[in-house]
């Protein structure tokens, strides 16, 4: 056992970035946290030049965001570090909620088999950041440490930045600026942009404890446990014998006093109930807010992650929603930078992710109100839900110790083409795609690993399609959507009930029938998929014109000016 030692990343002189007039970069990302790094990796995967500026020289201090949800792992699969993260992290699906000493509620994040990734892994943020940095560098991202952006000026077609380094201050410009500088977001403040919401009057103590323990890999949450009466406690297992323990303290607690080891250690001893040895790796007292910026897009400046929105930690909706921001933004930005879509497409980033942020804030606010009731009546209701939960299923469903991060169904997105055919199930236009086991070239594989590289047309078949159908599917993305631009391609992907040999088209075999089941598909069913693994349109039969129209819509071709500042 031993505490984590933060790596120091080398500082590089900005001599090559300094010039008069200032250099103009196509894309600059401010902040090398998980979300900024994800954006940078995605940019490199699309072949975009990206410069990342960070005022620090290391990864996160303390474990911070420890829970990475299934959807984040699917995004990290696309970015290329999920396997590594899952190997190092602690996978879990089960959460247990206790009242005093009794279990009153249990949830399973992925109750159905047949998904590549678990509901959640726990892994310290510093490990995730190290993996993301290595991946970004491997892909050729230019990351500059100890480069603090002190000023940003917005222009119609670019942003200009002032950057402070140990070698002095310099100016640089970006066609597009992605701001991922965290909850306090100095850039958001500097630009005087609004962020509004609710402050919660409660304090929590986080302790990262290094110890040997054989508790299962599950999330355990206590209301009013004997070892910490009248408050809540949360336990998570992390990698390398590190355990996250979170104690609710109440608003009157003195943060400086509560951080002292002589206060923390007795709390832990009371909880652990024995004299096992442990070591404190990191202790922090936190309060939180649930709030978001009114608009995530300000012309050429795009806000992602905590800089744009913050939630309470119950539900792990912070870093997880940040990854989804980057995932939504980067394919849109890629099309815009390559001239294949109008910059209005970026308004749909703001629109879709503001919708998702509202859902995250709603869920985390509901959890917080349950965990920390604000009045006697509220507390009575909470305690009586817990009392009824011992006996009745409906009350167990109401027990809210955190609704863990799951992706939003972007049902309101203007990029969707509404259904004209009847479908069962959840894979509606705007749905984040459900995974399923498949076979590719006789090998076991996963559906989500076959998608997520540009737009794709998924056609379900039970026999080799006719040459006419194959010609149709091949032409879905061949029409240029904008003058003088490369056409946006929608790559065909055939899902077959049995192995088929079809030249020039990738075929995946629905070996267990779960793709058809989860997507309510029959032979002929056609899905159009976004590059971020969301359904955007679907039909019962393949119609090239319908697919082309949906593709045009999904790339923002039909957007009027009305959704701009939603």
């Amino acid at each position, binding site marked *: 056992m031993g505490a984590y030692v933060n790596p120091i990343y080398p500082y590089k002189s900005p001599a090559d970035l300094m010039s008069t007039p200032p250099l103009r970069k196509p894309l600059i990302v401010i902040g090398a946290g998980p979300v900024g790094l994800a954006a940078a990796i995605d940019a490199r995967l699309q072949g975009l030049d990206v410069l990342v500026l960070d005022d620090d020289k290391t990864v996160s201090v303390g474990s911070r965001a420890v829970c990475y949800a299934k959807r984040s792992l699917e995004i990290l699969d696309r970015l290329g570090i999920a396997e590594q993260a899952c190997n190092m992290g602690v996978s879990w699906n089960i959460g247990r909620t206790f009242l005093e000493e009794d279990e009153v509620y249990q949830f399973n994040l992925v109750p159905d088999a047949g998904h590549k990734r678990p509901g959640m892994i726990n892994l310290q943020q510093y490990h995730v950041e190290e993996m993301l940095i290595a991946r970004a560098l491997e892909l050729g991202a230019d990351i500059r440490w100890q480069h603090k952006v002190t000023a940003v000026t917005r222009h119609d077609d670019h942003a200009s930045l002032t950057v402070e380094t140990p070698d002095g201050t310099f100016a640089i410009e970006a066609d597009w600026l992605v701001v991922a500088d965290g909850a306090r977001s100095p850039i958001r403040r500097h630009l005087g942009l609004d962020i509004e919401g609710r402050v919660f009057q409660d304090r929590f103590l986080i302790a990262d404890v290094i110890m040997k323990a054989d508790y299962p890999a599950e999330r355990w949450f206590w209301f009013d446990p004997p070892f910490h009466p009248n408050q809540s406690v949360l336990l998570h297992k992390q990698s390398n014998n590190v355990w996250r323990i979170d104690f609710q303290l109440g608003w009157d607690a003195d943060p400086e006093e509560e951080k002292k080891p002589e206060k923390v250690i007795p709390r832990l001893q009371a909880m652990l109930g024995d004299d096992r040895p442990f070591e404190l790796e990191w202790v922090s007292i936190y309060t939180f807010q649930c709030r978001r910026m009114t608009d995530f897009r300000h012309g050429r400046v795009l806000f992602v992650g905590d800089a744009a929105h913050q939630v309470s930690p119950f539900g792990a909706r912070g870093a997880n929603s940040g990854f989804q921001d980057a995932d939504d933004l980067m394919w849109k930005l890629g099309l815009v930078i390559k001239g294949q879509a109008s910059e209005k497409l970026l308004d749909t980033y703001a629109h879709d992710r503001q919708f998702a942020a509202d859902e995250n804030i709603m*869920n985390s606010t*509901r959890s917080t*109100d*349950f965990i920390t*009731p604000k*009045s*006697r*009546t*509220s507390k009575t*209701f909470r305690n009586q*839900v817990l*009392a*009824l939960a*011992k*006996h*009745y*299923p*409906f009350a167990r*469903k*109401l027990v*809210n110790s955190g*609704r863990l991060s*799951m992706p939003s*169904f972007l049902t309101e997105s203007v990029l969707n083409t509404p259904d004209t055919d009847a479908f069962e199930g*959840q894979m509606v236009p705007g749905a984040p795609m459900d995974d399923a086991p498949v076979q590719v070239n006789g090998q076991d594989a996963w559906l989500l690993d076959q998608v997520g590289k540009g737009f794709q047309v998924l056609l379900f078949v039970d026999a080799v399609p006719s040459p006419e159908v194959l010609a149709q599917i091949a032409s879905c993305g061949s029409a240029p959507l904008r003058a003088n631009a490369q056409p946006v391609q929608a790559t065909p992907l055939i899902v077959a009930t049995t192995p088929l040999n079809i030249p020039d088209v990738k075929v995946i075999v629905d070996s267990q029938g779960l793709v058809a089941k989860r997507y309510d598909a029959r032979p002929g069913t056609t899905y159009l998929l976004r590059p971020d693994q969301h359904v955007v349109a679907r039909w019962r039969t393949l119609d090239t014109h319908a697919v082309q129209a949906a593709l045009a819509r999904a790339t923002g071709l039909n957007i009027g000016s009305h959704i701009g500042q939603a």
Partner: protein
Amino acid sequence: MKTDMHTALKTDPNFHEPGRRFFRDFSPGDEFYEHLIEAHNGLSDEQSEALNARLILLLANHIGDLKVLREALGKARAST
């Protein structure tokens, strides 16, 4: 935990709204609970108690079936 199969009172999750689709099973219940707590916002303890009484009376009349109501009263009294 056992579920009573032969009773009239529904004790399985039952929050829903016609015409609305919920993608997560906890969402309709959480929405009700939010409305419930919100209804008490800013009230004194006495006012809240009175609101709860009015709410029970309204819902009891809506349910109407005395068999269901007797069962609910019995279960509420017993579940402490």
